[in-house]
């Protein structure tokens, strides 16, 4: 456990030395929320499950930004492999799973800062937020789980493709389909049948669904919070196991 935290600590310390990244990362979701959200909320065509479109969109953008940060995180491992840092981690007595979970935790810090920024921004533009402590904590846990899924997925991709160029390609390839084949910016009920199937196996959907329930005063869950947490929790576990297996192969 201490070793896991040590790996995460390294990430946090790096962020502390150079926090600019956190700011620049917040720009894109801000635009989604302010520009896309404001314009689209003028349309009456989107039935947004009983809440205003602005409210509907906020949890979707929060989930999206968490995912975007997490899914490109794996490139740092390729970078560390190329620079040689990773070799020393691998030669240390820390178990592989501790290295993987530590990396995921380190990335959580970015995701949570991002989530906080979007939450505050949502409050500022008048999204009807639930302010109970329990709901906020639940939301944080969901964001953590969601981030963990996409970070470990990202680490797995890094181990498989091994080069930065290929990784960027795959990352780009993954993010948009994951985003659009989810309930992040429109409800699943609007989708054609085949896309609904994809949306139902997309973990982002469950993240958004859970967030919508816990974040909004009028929010309702399509799947139930229990299922949301279960899907996200089990996916994380499965991906950590796979990532820990694959992790050493990135060196060869």
């Amino acid at each position, binding site marked *: 456990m*201490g*070793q896991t*935290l*040590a*790996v995460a*600590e*390294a990430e946090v*310390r*790096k962020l502390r*030395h*150079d926090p600019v990244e956190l700011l620049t990362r917040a720009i894109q979701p801000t635009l989604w929320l302010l520009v896309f959200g404001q314009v689209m909320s003028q349309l009456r065509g989107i039935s947004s499950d009983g809440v205003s479109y602005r409210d509907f969109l906020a949890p979707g953008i929060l989930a999206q930004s968490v995912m975007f940060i997490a899914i490109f995180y794996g490139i740092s491992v390729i970078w*560390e492999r*190329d*620079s*040689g*840092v990773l*070799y*020393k*981690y*691998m*030669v*240390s*007595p*820390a*178990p592989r799973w501790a290295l993987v979970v530590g990396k995921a935790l380190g990335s959580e810090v970015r995701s949570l800062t991002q989530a906080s920024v979007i939450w505050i921004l949502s409050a500022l533009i008048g999204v009807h937020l639930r302010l109970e402590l329990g709901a906020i904590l639940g939301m944080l846990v969901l964001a953590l789980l969601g981030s963990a899924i996409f970070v470990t997925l990202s680490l797995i991709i890094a181990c498989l493709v091994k080069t930065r160029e290929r990784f960027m390609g795959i990352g780009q390839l993954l993010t948009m389909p994951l985003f659009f084949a989810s309930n992040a910016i429109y409800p699943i009920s609007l989708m054609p049948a085949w896309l609904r199937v994809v949306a139902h196996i997309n973990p982002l959907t469950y993240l958004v669904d859970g967030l919508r329930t816990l974040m909004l005063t009028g929010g309702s869950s399509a799947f139930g919070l229990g299922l949301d947490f279960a899907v996200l929790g089990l996916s994380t576990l499965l991906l950590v196991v796979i990532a820990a297996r694959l992790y*050493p192969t990135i*060196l*060869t």
Partner: protein
Amino acid sequence: MPTPTSSEASGPLAVETVGLTRAYDTLIAVADVNISIPKGSVFGLLGPNGAGKTTTIKMLTTLLHPSQGQARVAGFDVVRQAAQVRQYIGYVPQMLSADADLSGYENLLIFSKLYRIPAGERQQRIEETLSFMGLSEVARTLVRHYSGGMIRRLEIAQSLLHHPQVLFLDEPPWVLTRRLAMPSRNTCGPCGSAGGLRSFSPPITWRRPRSCVRLWLSCIKAGW
């Protein structure tokens, strides 16, 4: 973390390989290597580029599984007892491997935690190691601002922090040998030149010269 005395680790050899082989598909990178390196010695592994020196070191440091044969480091099998091997070795890779986005102190701090050095001892160990490597003054500076030589010294510091029994250096560069050649009471002697190679002098001050093995498995390029 207790540093075991030589009697705790089984076998009198620091490194022992039997028929160590590594093949990549059809290419045999390392074929049937048999080495026995006694504790307390300095060992240089020499060979032209592509001879398989780094591959050998990777197998001995548990980074790469041997295709055939066995290897024991500090008395432990590199495949079956990889965790123990990792606990007792120090390793400086060929590349500059300190984290450039952290300070020198932070680099050491993270590794002191990875190696489970007790919280009470950490500060002292880190400070000792930094001062031994002449890095105390730049301890709080980000490594990206270090010179190449300073980074190398930091890497050595990192690899010594947990008082390893066996130290592996993959292609130790010049700048480092000059730095470490400073006379000191616990210094082990320079190792001589080998067949037309420039001599390599990696003496190092060791804090516990009696209980530790001073082994430098070094690779030197031909034609230096």
